[in-house]
């Protein structure tokens, strides 16, 4: 009787061990598959990755792997100006630059409350900048060059404008004007517009210019139409 029990015990033990071995192999296979996809998402389009493109996109939705850490580093600082005009008095114009105010006394160990607002406005304007840049590149594409008449150029500029004006990021920047007006006690019947500019950073050889802000050139990137608050 004892020997029968022993045999049954050994059989059960070896079966459970086999299940664990099988589980172990499955886990290792899953691990290998996951890391293969992770590597595939990091690599540029090549004959090995191209057939997997569909799966890579699905994988990227949750397990996105894109590690750039300031490569390339931005070479411009952006500025965002809101210009408020009183409809009754055309001489009453108020101009507010938002980032300088948000980044005042930036050094603190604890995350500052204004940090979130800075992120939102910076993120929204960066998207507008990216769109402007992409559309300009598209507009200058070689296949379009031969029909580069004044009319076509104007038409494509209009398309750029409509596309950007209807974007989520422009909508966020437009809506922020009201919050800013309330904060600065500007009458809510005013009209506003925002202007985004970029200021190039000085070359390393001219690094002492960093302390002389008036020497740095500013370039307009995007100017919205007037809108009510």
């Amino acid at each position, binding site marked *: 009787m004892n020997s029968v029990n022993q045999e049954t015990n050994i059989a059960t033990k070896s079966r459970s061990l086999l299940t664990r071995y099988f*589980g172990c192999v499955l886990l290792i296979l899953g691990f290998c598959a996951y890391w293969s996809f992770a*590597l595939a998402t990091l690599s540029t389009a090549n004959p090995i990755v191209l057939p997997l493109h569909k799966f890579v996109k699905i994988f990227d939705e949750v397990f*996105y792997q894109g*590690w750039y*850490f300031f*490569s390339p580093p931005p070479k411009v600082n952006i500025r965002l100006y809101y210009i408020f005009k009183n409809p009754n008095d055309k001489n009453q114009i108020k101009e507010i630059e938002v980032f300088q105010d948000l980044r005042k006394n930036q*050094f603190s160990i604890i995350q500052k409350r204004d940090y979130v607002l800075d992120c939102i406005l910076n993120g929204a304007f960066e998207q507008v900048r990216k769109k402007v840049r992409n559309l300009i590149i598209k507009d200058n594409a070689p296949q379009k060059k031969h029909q580069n008449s004044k009319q076509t150029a104007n038409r494509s500029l209009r398309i750029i404008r409509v596309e950007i004006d209807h974007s989520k990021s422009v909508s966020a920047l437009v809506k922020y004007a009201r919050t800013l007006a309330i904060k600065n006690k500007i009458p809510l019947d005013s009209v506003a517009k925002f202007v985004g500019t970029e200021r190039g950073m000085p070359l*390393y050889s001219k690094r002492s210019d960093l302390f002389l802000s008036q020497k740095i050139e500013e370039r307009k990137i995007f100017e919205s139409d007037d809108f009510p608050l």
Partner: protein
Amino acid sequence: MNLMTFPFNQLKRLLINGLNSTAIWFLSPCRHSLGLSMLRVYIGFHILYKYLSIWPYIDTLFSNDSFARYAPESIIYGFIPSRLFLEHDILFFWAYLSLVSLMILGVGKRGVVFGVFMFTVFSQKLNGYWLDGGDNLLKLSLFYLSWADSFQCLALVRSKIIRISLVNCCSKLAVASLMLQLALTYSSSGLTKVHTSTWYSGYGLYYSMINERFATSYLSFKLVQFPLVAIAGNYFVMFWELTFGILVWFRRTRYVVLLLGVFLHLGIFLFMGIRSFALLFIASYIIFLDDETLRGMQNSLMRLIDYLCSFYPTIVCNQNPLKKAQ
């Protein structure tokens, strides 16, 4: 060679023994349980800090009628409508932070960690304006942690150590993933830097440090005036990122690479203001230290504290008037 004399049986036995010992190694207890537990607790506090510091802006970031609404109509392959979370944002975050608290306390095991991972994915999909590279690492680390048994230490309800179990295999693969993730992160960033002309020519660190969005004070502007900081620092960052993925696997070079990484991220913390990012990366290094090393470090620290405390009674005794009277 005569096929009849070929030792098929010995070879077969050797192969079986090899496979058996490999499987047993995978199924035996993980040697990073302390590191896993510490990482779980740190990540919990990290999320609490991150979300409590932006609490006044929760509505701005995550409500349905906010000016900064970011989320598309549905998230995660279009299966989950964003409205579900955006209309009940406060409730969503209370549930999230409660789950995080349970994770810190070590209640609920791996299911809770997976829940925190899912909530993190949702919150990141709902508003991406305020995310940085650290948030991506946070999300991926939570996914790996949800596979590991990180409840053997620093938990109210500790899990038992099982000699042979599939849980151990999961933990080992999760530890390997956490290590691989850091190695891949730095290597990938290093490779991208090599292909970027600004970094390759030595000015990458300069431009990164003078960016108004990240420069925390005039000190960053002052520091880059020295070529040793800007140019040598640039090549140090590139070299360190490129070699991290290789040198971290060897015991002899591991501690040097990790120590340099701590200094680099402390620099980012102080001069570039991406605080949560820097702290999370430093905390993640703990996974490269096994239980034995961590216990050794703990003992050394205790000895140091004991040594420092040994001065205290003598000071007290000297100031004690009763002692003086005697």
